[in-house]
């Protein structure tokens, strides 16, 4: 028994050391499949369409990337919290999942150039009549657990001395909207793009988009294993080509109904 275990352990060690020396770019090409992680709970970046197929801006980017690599694509549905474990465990080669490029996270994971810029925004019932961000002081506010807007809101609330009692964390983006819809909270913080999508549905007819989180642009990148510099280089070039080849505009048109705004393209170029 012990011998067997030792043999298995040895095989694992040998296998992983071979794997570690192989470059991720080569691995993907040789495998013939790109394992692309997307958060499918975050429309219009990632969601399930009416046929229950993955769709959205991030999914289109996965498809475009697989196409230029000349491989098939395997889109994996992740939660916010699964993004890094999926990379470490080797379940995904890249995560196209609106990952905010904080320096803290960059200690653990490799970021590409930015590929999108969000604004964080408030959505609340029309009757709440929120004019400025400071109107949230006496309201019950929520956001999805472990998101950058949760961090930003809590930092702002702490600075203003609002305390944490009025704040509720939700497991996922969907749960945050469900909580808002049920009246568990008066307002939630989300991204401008997700809010715009939700406001088009009839469930959220009585809700309105409120002010932006002050002084914050959420710049997001693709993530890959930190050690895979060659792979990250490839992904960087891919992102630049997406702008130049018009694929960014195509995806933007499909999901937001217009060409990508000049200021978005400019900030993607500036941030690069």
């Amino acid at each position, binding site marked *: 028994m012990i011998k067997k275990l030792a043999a298995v352990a040895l095989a694992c060690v040998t296998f*992983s050391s071979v794997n*570690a020396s192989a470059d991720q770019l080569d691995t993907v090409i040789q495998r013939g499949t790109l394992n692309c992680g997307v958060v499918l709970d975050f429309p219009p970046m990632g969601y399930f369409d009416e046929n229950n197929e993955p769709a959205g801006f991030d999914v289109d980017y996965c498809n475009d990337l697989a196409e230029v690599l000349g491989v098939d694509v395997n889109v994996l549905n992740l939660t*916010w*919290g699964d*993004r*890094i*474990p999926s990379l*470490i465990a080797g379940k995904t080669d890249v995560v196209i999942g609106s990952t905010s490029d*904080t320096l*803290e*996270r960059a*200690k*653990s*994971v490799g970021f590409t150039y930015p590929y999108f810029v969000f604004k964080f925004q408030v959505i609340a019932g029309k009757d709440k009549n929120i004019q400025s961000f400071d109107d949230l002081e006496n309201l019950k506010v*929520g956001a999805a*657990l*472990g*998101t950058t807007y*949760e*961090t930003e809101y809590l930092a702002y609330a702490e600075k203003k001395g609002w305390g944490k009692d009025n704040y*509720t*964390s*939700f*497991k996922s983006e969907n*749960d945050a909207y*469900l*909580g808002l819809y*049920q*009246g*568990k909270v008066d307002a939630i913080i989300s991204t401008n793009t997700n809010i715009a999508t939700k406001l088009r549905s009839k469930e959220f007819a009585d809700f309105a988009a409120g002010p932006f989180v002050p002084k914050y642009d959420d710049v997001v990148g693709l993530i890959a*294993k930190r*050690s895979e510099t060659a792979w990250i280089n490839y992904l960087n070039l891919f992102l630049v080509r997406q702008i130049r080849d018009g694929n960014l505009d195509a995806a933007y048109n499909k999901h937001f109904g217009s060409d990508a705004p000049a200021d978005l393209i400019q900030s993607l170029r500036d941030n690069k």
Partner: protein
Amino acid sequence: MEYEFHWNIVFQKMPELLNGAFVTLHVSVLAMLLGIVIAILLAIAKMNNSKPFCYVATVWVEIARNTPALFQIYMAYFGLGAFGIHLSPYVAVLSALVFINAGYLTETFRGGFQSIPSTQYSASKSLGMTSFQVYRYIILPQMLRRIYHPMTNQFVWSILMSSLGILVGMSELSGTTQRLQSLSFRTLEFFIVAAVMYFIITKLVLISSSLLSRRLFKGEI
């Protein structure tokens, strides 16, 4: 393995993790105490054949034992929310755990009672003991001994189940761990430390319960 561990961030966040561990312990102890009280009532209701009470107790036990804890917590939070009843994450998790604990313990208690042969009751009565004395000196001590370990197991299970509080954004040990990991992306470090904390908590519970049982039952178990 390529992964480089960064332990110092975990030590920096230790106060938050300990706070989460405290909430975990807090909610499971409370859920256990309330669960025991309700389970005693349900067990009496089930044994005492009065129709409406027996019916309520049976439905309770059947639902608690045959549906996943995950759904019960979710229903307590979002399910009741659909009817305008808004429990805080803490109360939602607490009530779900009480519901489950009571469901399981009811059967434990009932089994404990029924495992004592009724002949003991008649024998004690024939020696001139009152009903109260029979229960106090003959039945209850034996029953307690028999259900003690299943009760301890339920307690440990209730501590581990409280980690489902993460579903409703509760800041117990798992929720805190998840939040810290998504800010820093140091998944393995935070999860390992949290797992160790769960292990220590449950181990402490088991050790103290076995010390207590030695005092209570004087080594007869």
